[in-house]
């Protein structure tokens, strides 16, 4: 069999296979994809601006010799938002698992030293219990309320969120995993996530 014959045969067989999938249709409305595209474009504009603003604030603080203590933070991105209340509580709300480094820097600015991972589970059961015993953070399925003053000196808050498969569904359901990394401790991360949402003991 020469190439032309093989080409015709395989083209015919592939076309037949494709036509055999005639029942397969994509139902997602165009508007949904266009909205997703617009959100991404907006995020691309906002993230560098937020990073630039954070860097600018830090540079200004250093230049003026201001103390580098916690500062009120109000950052709202498409992926997540961080907001400081007048009582010092810091609330993090998650929408998408993106920009973990920027979240860590934003929390540091708000006085919350944190280890942030959006692909791996980094808190063990004892670390989750340690966080619960301090009452420093309360988790809900999509947000975390933090009392920076209740975090032990030298400790770090562990925020790790692992996207998990929802049995073949189009959108992954994340597993939230919070904990406390004591001073001098190191975190061990893995993709083996189990649901550990902390609550004050």
């Amino acid at each position, binding site marked *: 069999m020469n190439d032309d014959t093989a080409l015709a045969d395989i083209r015919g067989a592939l076309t037949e296979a494709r036509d055999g999938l005639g029942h397969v249709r994509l139902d997602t409305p165009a508007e949904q994809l266009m909205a997703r*595209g617009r959100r991404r474009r907006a995020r691309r504009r906002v993230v560098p601006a937020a990073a630039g603003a954070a860097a600018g604030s830090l540079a200004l603080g250093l230049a003026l010799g201001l103390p580098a203590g916690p500062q009120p933070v109000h950052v709202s991105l498409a992926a997540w938002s961080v907001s400081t209340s007048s009582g010092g509580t810091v609330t993090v709300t998650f929408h998408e698992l993106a920009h973990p480094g920027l979240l860590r820097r934003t929390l540091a600015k708000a006085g919350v030293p944190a280890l942030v991972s959006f692909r791996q589970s980094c808190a063990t059961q004892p670390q989750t219990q340690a966080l619960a015993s301090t009452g420093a953070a309360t988790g809900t399925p999509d947000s975390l309320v933090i009392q920076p003053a209740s975090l032990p000196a030298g400790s770090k808050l562990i925020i790790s969120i692992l996207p998990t498969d929802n049995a*073949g569904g189009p959108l992954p359901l994340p597993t939230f995993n919070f904990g406390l990394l004591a001073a001098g401790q190191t975190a061990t991360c893995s993709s083996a996530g189990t649901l550990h949402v902390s609550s004050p003991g």
Partner: protein
Amino acid sequence: MDGPTGHDVKGSGGLGRCKGVEQAATEFASFYAADRDECLRVVLLNVGSRPLAEDLVEEAFTRAWMAWPKVRQHPARRAWVVRTALNAHISWLRRRRREVALAGHDVAAADRPDPVLDGDLATALRGLALRQREVVTLRLLLDLDTAATARLLGISPGTVGVHLHRALATLRQHLSDPSRSEQELSR
């Protein structure tokens, strides 16, 4: 002579922009409505999982919308979407490999078996190297000629010919010996 005021000029410019955005949205929606099912079927043949194929095609169309000024002028828009989806599949496989290497327990839920997707030819197609699969998909499933395929993939027409020749040889062997696909998959 009555010329337009500054306000009028600004107003009409804004209106023009709005009309431009609306026109782009209408064009994209029309392109999407016409080609989404076909793109999904072609990508599904390539990846074998319907939820994954849907995600990949949606991702590719989202990128097409984000780059619509460029994509709308592309001579083979449907092929652009399919190729973008196949590239997204490679990125997905790399991510998944890293995550599985860490724990080895994240197993995707199995799809309901589909006789078309489980057929020898579809199985053999999925076993081809990416470049060969892209060439077969563009040339045979999307009917692009060699020159258009070469332009889209950024390779020479001669290289397209080489990839197609090798792919045909492999697919032909699988067609003549269907048990080969199963043997290779079980290795």
